[in-house]
């Protein structure tokens, strides 16, 4: 319902649910406020937004006053002005006048409003209230005396982040904000409190006293740390990034960030960054040199090996942290210049296990829906994924759904940050996820909860029924450590919800036989008809920043740009025509296969762009041997990593803050990220290095002026990117498939590309059930009875963030997490050292007890040097090598 009201003599029509404050801002009338913030509940506490309303005696707070038809509001009367001045005078009696050293100075609401409405003098005499304060956290600084008790931090912590780490204690003028019992802060370091604080009461210690707010320039970019693709703002001065700020209301994150995005920027200007190319000299020492000589060295050797031993002896692995432009040129360089299809990314395993199933079953190669849909989902099933870690901002959307009453069921080997909030958290042992999903299918079939339209298309579900026949619900419940009730309720909620989705993650799929779980999950979606519409779909989530882009750009041994098969002659011809060059016919090797080929001496030259295999790849010592055996190794990196130390040539690349380009996030959204600062030293953007190298190899087709030019070529080669260019992405990301025709639509308000796939449902040839006959993906070997989950911590992203001092303050060392019960059984104490032994290798690590881990399970973060997970993981052909789950034996050290 629209209502008409008058504010300061000007009329406006607004929606009836709007408050006066927002209505006024639509007219461009700024009503000052402290405690009101978009997305937070109304409080009406600061009394700064008082306005005069005709017919109401008292002044009213605009933030809590709902508009009414015919309402007449005045925001500029002497009475209002007097009240504002009074409120500022009240707030300033106890607010310390230390703007000179306060880090919020320059962007402090109290400072601004006091300047605008306040009086220059105080009538308050005597001593201010002084509260005792102490350091509550290594990264978040609290200053109680500056606090104006607006409760924004408390509300944002509870309502957006769902953590409730901050609260108010005591009363009146002694009210203080802080963690429980004023101990140290135990939270997710999402930084929302820093963002929401209108004064300098909560600030970032990472930039404490280092810089003044007005000295910095801001530049919007895309966060480099996960596949969510959040928009953030780099704040820099003199080519140094001093902080990251939230880009209010921007991007799919609406400004929200997580700990990595907010605090992880110190990697950019890290003192250890490589700033000049290095070439190994005759003495075997890496020496700084010029770009020209370094590139010539690379070009000469790569060309030579390619010529002498064939393209198959050359390979390249690029990080999925690179931009689409970087990745596109990388594979173009490898394919066209070095005649090799040996190109891959560390997330290639995902592309070879999950993507083919998605393709086979649904004809898509990405998440079907938008992340925004998660906000409004009625029922959500999360299988094998800690969404709050893999994609923290998608996690926030799930938390919003929960606040709206969405029924979320989590199926994970351990507890996550969502467990406390979700409707249900099922701790299903690794390997039994399949049984649980089949259990849900069984309930839906038995109770007739399936979608009638699906039934109409299929006639009957005999195949599926047959596959779930041989186990009773009771047996399934026993195997999955759940109750029959939990399974039936979950099934009913999921089938009964109007909007229901499934999030599917690494833990479930990156284990032996993991794709069977995915098959069953798709069966469940098809059976219940939860596909192809807003709010209904499948989200396969991997945390690698640009894993989707890497796949789209063809950084894959078997796929060319645009998901075109290398084996297809017509597709290859199309790409060759666009490139005016040759693409080798045979499929290439995956990343692990390349390492194996290297060990066998078949692969002689390897180009690593932003990849540190020694930290993240399986193989341990064998891997190191293989890399050392390499005839020619190029590492293009930001830091001199362990792998880079083995290289023949090290090329300094730039971080995402130092280059322009595009990234494709987990929901297929192509977004532009912009350069904030110039590349440090002589470092160059990756696309530029590939381009220059191509030219150094004598290939003029590799000559590009800027990344925008590369994007234009991508748009001409990748069909579903056609029409995308840097200009069109300037303000908003676009979800592919996107065509040239859509480009015209972009300027229509709110057009963001294809929000969900499969609007017509599954095509005829996809209408079948996998009806997985087995009940478990794999079983543990009795010699290695413990299941070790290798996963991410909220505070780190791969091995890259190890360079962040701030994030290291939150987590710097790996500890092996186990349930106290497990520990007791093994006679291992909290804090003691153990040896973890797998079929592949072993290392020693400290144990730490955690109730969040299910008994019999172990968890180890894979970021840290002190626990080289590489040693435990089993290398091998893709179907055996799984990077998320390892079976181990734990022995007291």
């Amino acid at each position, binding site marked *: 319902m629209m209502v008409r009201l008058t504010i300061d003599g000007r009329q406006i029509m607004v929606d009836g649910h709007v408050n006066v404050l927002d209505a006024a801002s639509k007219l461009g009338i700024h009503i000052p406020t402290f405690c009101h913030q978009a997305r937070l509940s109304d409080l*009406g506490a*600061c*009394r700064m937004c008082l306005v005069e309303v005709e017919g109401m005696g008292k002044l009213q707070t605009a933030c809590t006053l709902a508009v009414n038809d015919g309402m007449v509001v005045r925001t500029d009367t002497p009475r209002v002005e007097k009240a504002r001045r009074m409120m500022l005078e*009240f707030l300033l*009696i106890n607010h310390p006048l230390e703007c000179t050293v306060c880090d919020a100075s320059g962007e402090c609401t109290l400072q601004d409003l006091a300047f605008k409405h306040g009086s220059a003098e105080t009538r*308050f005499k005597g001593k201010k209230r002084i509260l005792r304060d102490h350091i509550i956290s290594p990264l978040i600084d609290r200053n109680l005396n500056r606090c104006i008790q607006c409760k924004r931090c408390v509300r944002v912590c509870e309502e957006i982040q769902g953590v409730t780490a901050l609260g108010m204690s005591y*009363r*009146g003028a002694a009210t203080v904000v802080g963690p429980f019992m004023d101990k140290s802060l135990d939270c997710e370091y999402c930084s929302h409190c820093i963002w929401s604080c209108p004064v300098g009461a909560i600030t970032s210690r990472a930039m404490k006293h280092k810089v003044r707010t007005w000295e910095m320039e801001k530049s919007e970019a895309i966060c480099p740390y996960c596949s969510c693709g959040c928009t953030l703002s780099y704040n820099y001065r003199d080519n140094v990034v001093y902080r990251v700020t939230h880009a209010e209301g921007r991007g799919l994150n609406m400004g929200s960030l997580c700990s990595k995005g907010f605090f992880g920027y110190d990697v950019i200007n890290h003192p250890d960054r490589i700033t000049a190319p290095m070439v190994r000299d005759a003495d075997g020492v890496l020496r700084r040199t010029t770009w020209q000589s370094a590139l010539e060295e690379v070009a000469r050797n790569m060309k030579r090996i390619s010529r002498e031993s064939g393209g198959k002896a050359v390979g390249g692995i690029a990080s999925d942290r690179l931009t689409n432009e970087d990745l596109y040129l990388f594979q173009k360089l490898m394919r066209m210049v070095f005649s090799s299809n040996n190109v891959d990314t560390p997330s290639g395993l995902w592309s070879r296990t999950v993507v083919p199933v998605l393709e086979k079953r649904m004809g898509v190669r990405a998440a079907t829906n938008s992340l925004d849909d998660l906000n409004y989902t009625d029922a959500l099933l999360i299988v094998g994924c800690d969404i709050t870690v893999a994609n923290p901002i998608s996690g926030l959307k799930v938390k919003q759904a929960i606040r709206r009453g969405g029924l979320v069921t989590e199926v994970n080997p351990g507890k996550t940050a969502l467990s406390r909030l979700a409707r249900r958290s099922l701790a299903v042992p690794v390997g039994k996820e399949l049984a649980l999903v089949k259990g849900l299918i069984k309930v839906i079939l038995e109770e007739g909860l399936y979608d009638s339209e699906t039934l109409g298309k299929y006639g009957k579900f005999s195949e599926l029924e047959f596959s779930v026949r041989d186990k009773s619900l009771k047996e399934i419940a026993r195997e999955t450590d759940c109750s029959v009730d939990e399974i039936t309720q979950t099934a009913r909620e999921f089938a009964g919800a109007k909007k229901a989705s499934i999030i599917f993650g690494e833990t479930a799929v990156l284990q032996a036989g993991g794709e069977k779980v995915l098959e069953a999950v798709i069966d469940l979606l098809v059976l219940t008809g939860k596909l192809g519409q807003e709010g209904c779909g499948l989200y396969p989530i991997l945390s690698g920043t640009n894993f989707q882009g890497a796949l789209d750009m063809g950084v894959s041994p078997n796929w060319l740009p645009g998901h075109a098969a290398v084996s297809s002659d017509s597709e290859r011809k199309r790409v060759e025509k666009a490139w005016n060059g040759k693409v080798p016919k045979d499929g290439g090797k995956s990343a692990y296969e390349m390492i194996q080929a290297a060990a066998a001496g078949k692969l002689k030259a390897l180009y690593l762009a932003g990849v540190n295999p020694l930290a993240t790849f399986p193989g341990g010592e064998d891997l190191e041997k293989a890399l050392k055996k390499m005839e020619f190794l190029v590492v293009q990196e930001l830091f001199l990593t362990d792998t880079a130390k083995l290289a023949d040539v090290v090329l300094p690349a730039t971080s995402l803050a130092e280059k322009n380009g595009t990234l494709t996030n987990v929901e297929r959204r192509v977004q532009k990220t912009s350069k904030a600062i110039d590349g440090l030293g002589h470092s160059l953007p990756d696309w530029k290095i590939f381009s220059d190298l191509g030219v150094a190899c004598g290939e003029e087709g590799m000559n590009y002026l800027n990344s925008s030019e590369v994007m234009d070529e991508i748009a001409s080669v990748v069909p579903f990117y056609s029409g995308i260019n840097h200009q069109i992405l300037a303000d908003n990301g676009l979800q592919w498939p996107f065509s040239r025709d859509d480009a015209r639509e972009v300027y229509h308000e709110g057009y963001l590309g294809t929000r969900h796939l499969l609007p017509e449902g599954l095509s005829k040839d996809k209408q079948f059930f996998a009806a997985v006959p087995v009940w478990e993906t794999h079983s543990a070997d009795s010699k290695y009875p413990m299941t070790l989950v290798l996963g991410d911590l909220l505070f780190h992203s791969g091995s890259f963030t190890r360079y962040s001092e701030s994030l290291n303050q939150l987590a710097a060392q790996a500890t092996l997490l186990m349930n106290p019960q497990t520990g007791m059984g093994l006679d291992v104490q909290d804090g003691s050292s153990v040896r973890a032994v797998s079929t592949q290798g072993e290392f020693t690590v400290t144990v730490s007890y955690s109730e969040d881990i299910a008994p019999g399970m172990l968890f180890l973060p894979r970021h840290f040097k002190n626990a080289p997970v590489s040693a435990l993981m089993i290398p091998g052909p893709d179907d055996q090598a799984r990077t998320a789950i390892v079976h181990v034996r734990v022995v007291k050290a």
Partner: protein
Amino acid sequence: MSELKILTRNVSRPNPAHIDSYLVNEGYVALPRALNEMTPEEVIDEVKIARLRGRGGAGFPAGMKWDFASRDRRKPKYIICNADEGEPGTFKDRVLIENDPHAILEGMALAGYAAGAEKGFIYIRGEYPQGARILERAIAEATSRSFLGDNILNSGFNFSVTVHRGAGAYVCGEETALIESLEGKRGQSRIRPPFPVNVGYSNLPTVVNNVETLASVPPIILRGGAWYASIGTPECPGTKLYSVSGHVARPGVYELPMGVTLRELIFDNAGGMREGRTFKAAFPGGASSACLDESQLDVKLDFNSLAVAGSMLGSGAVIVLDDTADMVKATHVLIKFFEHESCGKCTPCREGLFWVRRILDQILEGSASEQDLDLLLEICEGIRSTSFCGLGEASVSCVESTIKKFRGEYLAYLRNSGSGEAETEAAS
């Protein structure tokens, strides 16, 4: 005017809190009558006819409140008995809680029947441990005799009551803060509207009534609303419990028809002033009401008359001060109370009261000037007109009224830089 014992009818009986004592004197007669013979609407109508006004302080008609709640379609609904009697000078609810708990329970059950609620809470202030024990025993007694619990007296009506003890915050006497506290949150007022009758406990329709209001209900149902309306003044019918404290000969709780004058209350009932002393001022509605001086002794103590006189009835806590009282010090004591009890949510109450107290400190120390008195009034006006809830609004009336009526005493402090005390004594 002499005492009329309706609410306090059982107080002087032996073992008054016991259910048997209550049953002897027409106890639990109104409830079965309502359940068997009346519809919920008829119960509401009866209370409306009685024109029973809430005794917590605001004087909102109880019948209307019940009516609003009964019209709300959402279920379940709740009845909350506000027994968080925290206003300085008020101790009337305690008398009822400790001596006639069953009247409160019967009133709650009737309110529940009328409004369509099956669950009641008694939010009792933490400083009344004995009262909480008595109420809990009374609930057990009433439940065992089927006056509470499931299927009360085979009528099909269920109503259970839980006692919740507060944690010592004055602001939790405010109904929305009480509900927040009851939900386990920090005791701070909520935004109104929506009002608790629609969005209350757990965001469901909730009736919050004072102890005295609820205890008035059984007699109304028993004898009819018309009978009740004939007592007291036409606008404010019924009897009222007045808690008289301060410099009177016989402080205590007096039940008198509404509309009794201050003079009648003090001199006819409370035994007049202490020996040899004369009346100076009285706060008719506890610490948060504006004071009355000698010229206002004939003001009627009901909602409307006191509002006209610039004060308020509040909970009927009459604090009487005689000629030995130092009004500045008295005000300082009251402001210290409010500063301590301010919940800290809104700026004017939190920071303003801190400032007011500082200025009063300075006046007492003798380091203030006459401009500070004007500043004080300006701050008070600011607090009163912009505070979030009633606490802030009412907190400064003691300062404003004493400056208005006893400005001389303030000036004496200002002039004599610290030695004002002697001056005041001499002046009076």
